[in-house]
């Protein structure tokens, strides 16, 4: 049959393509090209994500590193007793009458005098513009110092104070002569003067510890703004979150993993936990506002409310991580413990839990890291407010005092108009990322050192 058919239609038989393993046919070329293209898409996708990450980190670091340096003015000041203590009796109450304006006048005059003494020409710069070099923060600090130590009156001390934001920006390269020409707050002549003062060592940049310790400052004094209150607020919140979330999360996970019967109630709990993990964080902010502040009347902007909200928010992730850690403990351990007469509860608390501890701890640290960077819910409970006073110590009810948090400080600085605050904002991000990196490294080390594979 076959032979007959083939002999009948010899012309229809396709001429065999001259294919070889060594030369590619057109189709094969096309397919290989498609293969190469497909692979290139993958590489491109990875390159895109990683390069965006690199650009982001690079821009933030290059913007933010300068927040750790600060231009400061150093010059001798004779504390004129007549001006600062008009009555001359060194009474604190009397000396309080002299406001920062009095100190500002004194500092301005002394700076001018010092410039003259050092032979630095202030040509083209009015006295008022020279005075504008001194940050508004400096007179306030000097006043506090004099009120603390009245015996300084009459002496000549060396004052070291911040220079104003624009001068600071010029020294760091953020403000240039071109931008200064367009800026009403600073003139090119002032920048020339700044150059001369820098040559003489009056104007200098130093490492800015104040950035880490000072409280926030108002819009006019970006140079004095610091992260002090935000760091304390974040530290309080993280401590409270650990205290609340760890027992709750571990207890819930133990129940769900070891004791819960399979029924509708536990199913409901499980569905709830997985759904809560996917609820947008801002919804937790609304919850905190409605329940903890409006209903329970906890004080606004307090670390306690922030911690409660963050606890509820991280609880699902911690439960999921803890359950995975408990599940990873092999059943043979449980069987052995039960076999020698331990109760179910003893098995869990004496054997399963210690073996799952490294995994639980790793999960908790990672959950805390995400809570540390969370911003949106904290905005709603009022932590974005301007807080210039440090909260009290943890035992004096400091968790009820108004405070801010690191990521919220990033946001509130970013939304101010002066570009000097963008630099601070990026600097705050560097601090935040430093904490996050540390926490993640600790988690990785814990996992490497203690995690057991069964």
């Amino acid at each position: 049959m076959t032979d007959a058919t083939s002999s009948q239609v010899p012309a229809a038989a396709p001429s065999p393509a001259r294919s070889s393993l060594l030369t590619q046919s057109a189709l094969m070329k096309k397919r290989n090209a498609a293969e190469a293209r497909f692979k290139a898409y993958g590489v491109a996708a990875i390159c895109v994500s990683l390069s965006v990450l690199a650009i982001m980190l690079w821009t933030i670091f290059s913007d933010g590193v300068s927040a750790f340096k600060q231009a400061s003015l150093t010059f001798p000041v004779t504390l004129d007793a007549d001006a600062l203590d008009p009555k001359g009796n060194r009474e604190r109450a009397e000396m309080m009458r002299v406001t920062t304006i009095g100190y500002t006048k004194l500092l301005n005059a002394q700076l001018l005098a010092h410039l003259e003494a050092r032979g630095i020409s202030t040509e083209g710069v009015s006295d008022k513009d020279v005075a504008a070099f001194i940050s508004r923060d400096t007179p306030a600090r000097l006043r506090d110092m004099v009120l603390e130590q009245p015996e300084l009156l009459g002496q000549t001390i060396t004052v070291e104070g911040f220079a104003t934001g624009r001068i600071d920006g010029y020294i760091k390269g953020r403000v240039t002569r071109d931008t200064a020409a367009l800026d009403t707050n600073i003139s090119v002549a002032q920048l020339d003067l700044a150059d001369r003062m820098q040559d003489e060592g009056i104007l200098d940049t130093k490492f800015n510890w104040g950035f880490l310790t000072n409280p926030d400052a108002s819009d006019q004094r970006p140079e004095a703004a610091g992260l002090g209150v935000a760091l304390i607020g974040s530290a309080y919140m993280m401590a409270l979150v650990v205290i609340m979330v760890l027992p709750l999360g571990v207890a819930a996970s133990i129940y769900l993993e070891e004791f819960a019967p399979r029924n509708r109630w536990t199913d409901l709990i499980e569905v709830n936990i997985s759904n809560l993990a996917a609820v947008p964080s801002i919804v937790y902010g609304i919850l905190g506002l409605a329940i903890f502040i409006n209903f329970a009347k906890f004080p606004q902007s307090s670390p306690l409310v922030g911690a409660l909200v963050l606890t509820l928010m991280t609880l699902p992730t911690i439960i999921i991580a803890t359950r995975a850690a408990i599940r990873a403990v092999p059943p043979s351990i449980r069987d052995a413990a039960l076999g020698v007469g331990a109760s179910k509860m003893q098995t869990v608390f004496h054997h399963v839990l210690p073996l799952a501890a490294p995994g639980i701890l790793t999960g908790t640290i990672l959950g805390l890291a995400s809570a540390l960077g969370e911003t949106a819910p904290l905005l709603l409970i009022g932590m974005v407010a301007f807080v210039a006073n440090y909260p009290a110590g943890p035992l004096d009810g400091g968790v009820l005092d108004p405070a801010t948090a690191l990521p919220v400080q990033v946001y509130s600085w970013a939304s101010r108009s002066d570009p000097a605050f963008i630099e601070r904002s990026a600097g705050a991000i560097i601090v935040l990322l430093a904490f996050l990196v540390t926490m993640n490294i600790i988690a990785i080390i814990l996992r490497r050192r203690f995690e057991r594979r069964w």
Partner: protein
Amino acid sequence: MSVFFLIIVLGVLAIAGFVLGRGRALASVQGNTRRLHSLPGYYAWHGAIMAFLPAMAVLTLWLIAQPLIIERQLADYFPAEQFENDSQRILLMADVRRVAEGLDVAVAAGALTPQDAETITVADGSVRERLGAVGVALGAEVTPEVLDAAQSYRALASTGALGRAIVTLIVALAGLAYALRITNGDFRARNRVEAVILGVLILASTIAILTTIGIVMSMLSETIRFSSMYPFKDFLFGLTWQPSFQGGSELGLIPLLWGTLYISLVAMIVAVPTGLFTAIYLAEYASPRVRSIIKPLIEVIAGIPTVVFGLFALVTVGPFLRDWFAVPTGLGSSGSSVMTAGLVIGVLNIPFISSLADDIINAVPQSLRDGSYGLGATKSETVRQVILPAALPGIVGAILLAASRAIGETMIVTMGAGAAAKLDLNPFEAMTTITVKIVSQLTGDTEFNSPETLVAFALGMTLFVITLGLNIFALWVVRKYREQYE
């Protein structure tokens, strides 16, 4: 006796229960622990729990009940119609409490004798000034009714505090005595203690449900209040968003919803292809070494706080898009735009999609790949025609989850999308989203009695419903269309 001190006393009683319970158990078997049913520690814990827990429960109930009872008692001082109106009653009670606290402070500071505080009347001169002198600031002059009510409040509160202390201590001592009485060698202390621990564990696991209930209740009740002040139909279908605190605001959801969906769409256009190709490359092409380097690096993106992305959008991406795309093409002049926020949210979502898709692709059995290669397919053909169809439900689920994250994202849109509520197609225009408006309506000092602030709760409810719906839908898709490989 203050509550704090009471709790300390309870703690001391618990410690006593701990020591006595153990001692009694050991004494009952003459120190031979082998004759005890449970380990001695369990008897100790039993004593502590019985002394502490019931008393603590009574104390908690009392603390909740006392203000409600006092409030009812004070109803006589005020006209009935004032007291029946909810908001007026709350204000009145706040006044009463403030005056009562003021009197307490005045007594503590020595400005008033305790007798004076009980008998002072409005006729004796301005109560406000006298309280002001000791640092208690009152908003308005104290009315006679409020002053009488406050004095009665103080009396009731001090009786209440005394009763609270006595009842709590009696319960604690009774619990302790009961624990000691039933403690002997045969008493099953371990079972009792373990039952309590189990109760605590169950309680902890219901927090998840309580949180959900809290979220729903808090938003629902405020949303209902909002709908009583502003027609809910206008909220759902209104085309303009123009809140004004002088009244006459238009609070339409549609422009916000449009902004949210538009930005999320841009984000998904960025994130889905990039994330999928990343996952495919990592799962199918990358060598184990490359994978072990690249995968953590991609996941670093997911670990960076969103406020950092927000600053990146504000400082870098926004101005870049404005100067290189929007202004040259004449499409817009604003740094914050749909594109800015969308691109940055897209980048944020890449690791989310890629790690989910990676897991799903890895779950496709090797035999399917081998079959495809055996038929002569190239790698990319295998991926496109075998692996992706097999993994499709999971990938769709991942995409839906990512979309729900994009919709709920707050910081990036607050810093990068703008604040103008518009219905516009131009992606280089500033637009706003639901989350941005929740933040802007609720930050700052707000009173929760105007539709302009309450609308934030309705917006939150909308957001919650949308994201929850997407999540449930995603899970449903995964479950329904999942291929079973056995």
